């Protein structure tokens, strides 16, 4: 593994490169944020896990925790790999070798759990009649995007490490990802990254763009507040008339 920073001087980015590694990410992020705000404002009733546990529990009991805990671990891994710069871990004295070993072992473990869980859940969704008939077209699109992203990600991790000189994504993908959020996007970093990473990133962006319109919104209702709120919630009866605020000019006079 090369420790020298990857040089991007003289790399031809081109229109396609700018489109894929600058325009697509910003469009996806904008859709993700605005979409969630819009969905939350206008479709609180549709904001749910839409659990199918009532129909079938035997497979779900195994598959669902496997998938969900796996993907949470994957998310944690991505924070470590994408958001934390390489020199931070170096300062902490984490050697490249150690980092690499942890990343690959955890990544493969989490990825395999996620994939096994997803396989069980998809098998269940297809073969259990009531679950299948409760699957909307929206769900199917979501499954394709999600599974494609997971497969590409896991494939990149596994296949990338079977070669003699695995690609160090902390030199390309990670700085590029951070550069998007610092508003100095550097598409050249991505142009030199291997195909697997590029496909994984593109699949992920399309998943993020679709996210707010799918059942995946339930990720953002992870009820952490439950740990601190009082057990019994009291609420006064709505004093506002009707079930929505009146339009301007139609307010009630006191």
């Amino acid at each position, binding site marked *: 593994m090369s420790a020298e920073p990857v040089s991007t001087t003289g790399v031809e980015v081109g229109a396609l490169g700018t489109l894929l590694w600058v325009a697509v990410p910003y469009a996806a992020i904008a859709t993700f944020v605005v979409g969630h705000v819009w969905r939350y404002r206008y479709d609180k009733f549709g904001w749910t896990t839409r*659990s199918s546990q*009532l129909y079938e*529990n035997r497979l779900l009991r195994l598959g669902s925790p496997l998938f969900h805990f796996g993907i949470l671990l994957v998310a944690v891994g991505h924070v470590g790999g994408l958001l934390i710069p390489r020199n931070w871990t170096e300062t902490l004295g984490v050697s490249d070798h150690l980092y690499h070993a942890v990343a690959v072992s955890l990544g493969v473990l989490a990825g395999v759990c996620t994939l096994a869980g997803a396989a069980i859940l998809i098998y269940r969704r297809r073969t259990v*009649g009531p679950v299948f*008939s409760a699957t909307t077209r929206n769900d199917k699109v979501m499954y394709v995007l999600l599974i494609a992203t997971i497969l590409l990600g896991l494939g990149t991790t596994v296949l990338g490490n079977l070669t003699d000189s695995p690609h160090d994504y902390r030199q390309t993908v990670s700085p590029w990802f951070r550069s998007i959020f610092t508003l100095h996007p550097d598409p050249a970093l991505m142009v030199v990254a291997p195909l697997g990473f590029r496909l994984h990133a593109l699949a992920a962006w399309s998943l993020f763009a679709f996210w707010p319109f799918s059942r995946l919104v339930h990720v953002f209702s992870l*009820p952490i507040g439950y740990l601190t709120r009082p057990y019994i919630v009291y609420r006064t009866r709505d*004093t506002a008339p009707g079930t929505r605020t009146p339009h301007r000019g139609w307010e009630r006079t006191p």
Partner: protein
Amino acid sequence: MRVMAQMAMVMNLDKCIGCHTCSVTCKQAWSNCSGVEYVWFNNVETRPGQGYPRAYEDQERWRGGWELNRRGRLRLKGGGRLRKLFTIFSNPKLPSIDDYYEPWTYDYDTLTTAPLQEHTPVAQPRSLISGQPTKITWSANWDDNLGGAPDHLHRDPMIKGIEDKVRLEFEKTFMFYLPRICEHCLNPSCAASCPSGAIYKRSEDGIVLVDQDKCRGWRMCVSGCPYKKVYFNHRTGKAEKCTFCFPRVEVGIPTVCAETCVGRLRYIGLVLYDADRVLAAASTPDDKDLYEAQREVFLDPNDPAVVAEAERVGIPRDWIEAAQRSPVYALINKYRVALPLHPEYRTMPMVWYIPPLSPVVDIVRDTGHDAEDHGNLFAAVDALRIPVEYLANLFTAGDPAPVDAVLRKLAAMRSYLRDINLGREPRESIPESVGMTGEQVYDMYRLLALAKYDERYVIPPAHAEQAHGLEELATECSLDYEGGPGMGGSGPFGESSGGASPIAVENFRMLRDRQTSDTYAAPVDKGSRVNLLNWDGKGTPDGLFPPKEES
């Protein structure tokens, strides 16, 4: 003292004939849409029996309600907050659809479209879950009137410990009906189990409701409720439960189940209680003291100190007066004939029951003795331990003394009133033997036997300053809703997504949708199918009548 008002109900089980009218009208009003076909906010169980869902009272299995930990502090029986979060991806204690029952309809179409044949065509049952032909094996009241009791009765959790006696005397068995709705508990474990904080108790009237905009479908409430009275709508992915018909109660009319009750056995009224004492009462160490503890949480609405405190915290004057006239308070605390259902769950339930004397009366009558004579009845209450022990398992955590006392009061009332009705000199010794005066017994008789509509239902309306909201549509722009977002039956993200629509509009739409489109499992020829169960006699839906002849 922190005075709060609670809308509560008492049911007089002696009068229940098990006609299921309450269940049917409730279902038509609240749970007739897709996704909740299996749901009965109100159901009527034959006891002894398993109930609905099956054996829901077996809390060692379902882990509903509260329990005391080793230090005597209250905790959720199903586990604390962290445990709930760690099992959130697959709820370990969720009843499956088989524990309720697989809802079905019949393929009525065959009856009218089958070709001429030797045998009468049969409408086969179809599952409303999978749409496939199904075999009906269970329902919400499959064991009605002890049907199949020899096979099923041993699964009734309340029979544990007395099963030998019940089986031995099966020919002389007893039976009664138990109508159940949500208990609107003072210490609701469903609300405490909800990770999203979507279930709340209304501070004005104590009604426990689900905020469907906040519910995220984690299903912990279903497991947390020991009465299994919160249900999961599998189409919308939201929890649904009995609402105590709040839109009706707010305008001063009783719930649908009470309004339509043929036996007039339901009483609705306010009780005032001290919210500061609820936790201590729910933490009473001995299960058998919970009935008394809960009774002592209620405040005497005629006590001037209570009235003053209630006024200070802003309970309106007419609500206090309603609490003073409340039939529920009278039955619970004045006559002490109403008992809570399963106080041992420690949720402080607020739908109470007058246990039935009829199993005892029936047995006395069958032996040829005078079933109206208080001596015979008292002896029978003492001798017939099985019904009493069974009732005690339901209503007093197994302590037969309070059940005994109630049954004796009811027996005394029977005998005392018979003398009056037959023009004989009433014997004051009878009420005295149960610690009451003749006048009290007569008042109790009036409330139990004669009470008119406005005595059975003392419901103060929600306040005039809020009346506009209750009308929902009167001066709002109703055009906002028609065709607006959320008006379609199915929004862009699945069943019923979109903004909230007022309840009246929702009913209107639901009725319209049902009349025009609801069929089981979306068959291809649904345009020509009619659901006769939902047809209200108005209009001529396509396919109901043969096409008019061209003239």
